[in-house]
């Protein structure tokens, strides 16, 4: 229960901001918080609270998997890499061959969000394959 005390402010904030399917449990010295935030702002706020309670997230005793609820499936996403192109791969994994590239800030079609980590996308040129979801920002 000690970890729940340490992160109580975070749990309270998640409850107060209507995070759906909120699950908080402790196992082998790690606290797991899962749920679905109503919007990106709520998710950012929760990560800010986490950063405050555990500066730079360095304790390694919390795994927080908060997704943002999507009212409708995402169909368009912008490539938000730092500056480089985004690799499009045959399958979900960096061990998969590169079948194309999406340009930095290019808007692509999201065919399927089959996992949290890899999305199936298609570029305007018709190149289709898997890209790392962290570098894709949904367009409304």
């Amino acid at each position: 229960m000690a970890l729940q005390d340490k992160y109580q402010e975070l749990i309270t904030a998640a409850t107060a901001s209507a995070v759906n399917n909120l699950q908080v449990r402790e196992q082998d010295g790690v606290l797991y918080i899962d749920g679905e935030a109503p919007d990106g702002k709520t998710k950012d706020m929760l990560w800010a609270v986490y950063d405050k309670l555990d500066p730079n997230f360095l304790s390694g005793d919390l795994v927080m998997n908060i997704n943002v609820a999507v009212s409708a499936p995402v169909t368009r996403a912008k490539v938000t890499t730092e500056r480089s192109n985004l690799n499009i791969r045959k399958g979900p994994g960096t061990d998969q061959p590169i079948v194309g590239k999406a340009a930095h800030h290019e808007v692509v079609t999201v065919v399927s969000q089959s996992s949290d980590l890899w999305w199936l996308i298609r570029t305007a040129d018709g190149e289709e394959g898997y890209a790392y979801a962290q570098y894709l920002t949904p367009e409304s």
Partner: protein
Amino acid sequence: MAIGFTSCKGKLKDADIKTAIEAALKADPMAAGTMVEVKDGVATLTGECKDEMCKNLCAEIAGKVKGVKSVVNNCSVAPPPAAPVINPEDDVLTKALTDALKDHAGMGFAVKEGKIVLTGEIAKAKWAMLKQTLDKLKSKGYDLTGLTIK
């Protein structure tokens, strides 16, 4: 009718007992959600309690109310939350980690007994983003003692 009248004589009415139990339950935040029905002095509790302790507490509170002969505790206990899903295999986690850290050349990583071990240096903004991705990998937590945030 006459029998009904005499049986109530000198005793508390069920409705009054019910009101008294409800007030007592409401006074305790843990027991506040419990419902009660009273018949012939027997109080029946229903509703959902978060654990056994809460369920027992409800019965205790109801049992102390004047006029209650016995308590039937039909409260249900909420099932415990589902256990977190954890990546069972270190190599599955290592593969996912390889993907996540591909663009972070300055960092070293390993998987040790389901935990993610990170070493090296990373800028705060990048780390904040990376940690969000890593928390999706279903690890057993982290060893970040070798990590420096710039």
